């Protein structure tokens, strides 16, 4: 565990009460959810402090490697090169990735193929997908983003090349924004844009299109109708402390998963 000085804060705990600090760190997409979970957990376990850090998925891995966090939060799968430092991973929730366009856009639905062509730069004009005659402005997330990873993988924007290497073919002409909020802001204010954001953060400043006729929602993701989704992971580098174990137990419990749903994400139960 990272920190345990939390043990002597607060009033003297009952003899059987577990005390300590649990640190989670990593993806900022997971962070809001972690906050909710932590708050709920701490309400019931006054002896344990759960500290929620952001930093990004990469930082999450690094944090467990360096043992400054108990859990690394990832909004993407564990990469091959990271596998070595991860001893255990928990899927704590699922998140749909909504494809969004500028509210003024007339396009309602896109197929996965269309999305792929748009993002690889093959389709450059909205009229090719049934929209107005205007160039498509592609908005993407940065290299390494969990959202981007899930999105490109599912839409086949990324895939193995002939040499068998994983290649991300996202067009070089995409605007890149570093966060969900920035993508939404961009898509909301810039005409002719298309982007993708975490379902949990979706708001009506942008218009979510249906993918292959399915609108993104918890239900459609859960049912598998909506194709573009990714898991939220907690990964662990070594042995879990007692407090950490209690926390992960809580997260995976029904109580915890209820909170996941409340927060707009999809329960793994």
């Amino acid at each position: 565990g990272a920190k345990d000085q939390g043990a002597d804060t607060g009033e003297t705990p009952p003899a059987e009460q577990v005390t300590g600090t649990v640190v989670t760190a990593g993806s900022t997409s997971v962070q809001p959810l972690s906050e909710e979970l932590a708050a709920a957990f701490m309400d019931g376990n006054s002896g344990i402090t759960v500290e929620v850090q952001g930093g990004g998925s990469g930082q999450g891995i690094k944090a467990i490697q360096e043992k400054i966090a108990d859990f690394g939060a990832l909004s993407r799968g564990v990469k091959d090169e990271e596998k070595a430092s991860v001893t255990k991973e928990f899927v704590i929730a699922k998140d749909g990735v909504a494809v969004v366009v500028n509210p003024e856009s007339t396009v309602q639905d896109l197929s996965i193929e269309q999305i792929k062509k748009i993002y690889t730069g093959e389709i450059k004009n909205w009229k090719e997908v049934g929209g107005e005659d205007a160039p498509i402005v592609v908005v993407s997330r940065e290299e390494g983003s969990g959202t981007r990873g899930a999105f490109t993988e599912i839409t086949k924007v990324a895939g193995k090349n002939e040499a068998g290497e994983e290649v991300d073919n996202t067009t070089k002409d995409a605007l890149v924004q570093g966060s969900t909020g920035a993508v939404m802001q961009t898509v909301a204010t810039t005409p002719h844009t298309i982007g993708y954001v975490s379902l949990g953060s979706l708001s009506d400043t942008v218009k979510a299109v249906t993918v292959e006729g399915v609108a993104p929602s918890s239900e459609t993701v859960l049912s598998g109708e909506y194709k573009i989704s990714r898991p939220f992971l907690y990964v662990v580098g070594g042995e879990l402390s007692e407090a950490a174990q209690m926390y992960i137990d809580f997260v995976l419990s029904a109580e915890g998963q209820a909170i996941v749903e409340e927060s707009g994400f999809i329960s793994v139960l």
Partner: protein
Amino acid sequence: MKQQKELKNIKNTKNVIFYGLIGVLAAVTLASLIIIIGYILVNGMTHINFEFLTQDPKRMGKEGGIFSVIIGTLMVTSVGILIATPIGIAAAIYFTEYSKGGKGVYLIRFFTEILAGIPSIIFGLFGFAFFVIFMGMGWSVLSGGLTLAIMVLPTLIRATEESLKTVPMSYREGSLSLGATKWQTIVRVILPCCRPGILTGLILGIGRAIGETAAVMLTVGGSLRLPTSVFDSTRTMAVHLYVLAAEGLSMEKTYATAALLIFIVLLINTSANLISNKLGGNNGNEI
């Protein structure tokens, strides 16, 4: 005579263009200032209220206030400044009063200049790699404070040095010729003359520290908890603002936080001006 008149006409036209251009550019500068600050304040002030100031953030800041963030900001900034100030002043004293020239000092000075130019993101990377991990301090107020301290050090050194340099040589001579030692001279005569300069440096440093995002995010972490010691992780207003904006959590809170941040910077600047005006009367530069 005719030539004279021509010359005069040319000069008049030139004058008009010249002053026109300067006026326009100055107006543009002022306008951008007013627009930016005005925009933020107008959008944000309405959302600043008692609750916002006294409640902790809830749901990642979507709801609630920013109390813990304010405290976090204060702590991180204070730690940074408290560490940097004595070191910065001492270093400046070394450069102006003790160093005897030569390659070594030139190098030290050069590196100090370099430090000033290093982008904050690199400080962040360094702070994370060094304080957070290597020194095992974890994400904490202390890690952030130390990183900020290094960051504002050149600012402080430079400001202090500049004001040390404005202390007339004659004060030093005056003191030494009375039989004072070098250190006595520095403490009793030179430093008191530099108070406004050092203060200015301090304010600049505080400004830089408060406004810093990248370096702080990587070293202090992003915990929304109310920190109880310097070993706790917390979040500063700038980081909070960044997260709010980046994750698009709540426009309202984003504006409110930005407005508050600007307000605080404003407050610091004004009070610094007031203080330095007051100290100014005692300043040696005036003769």
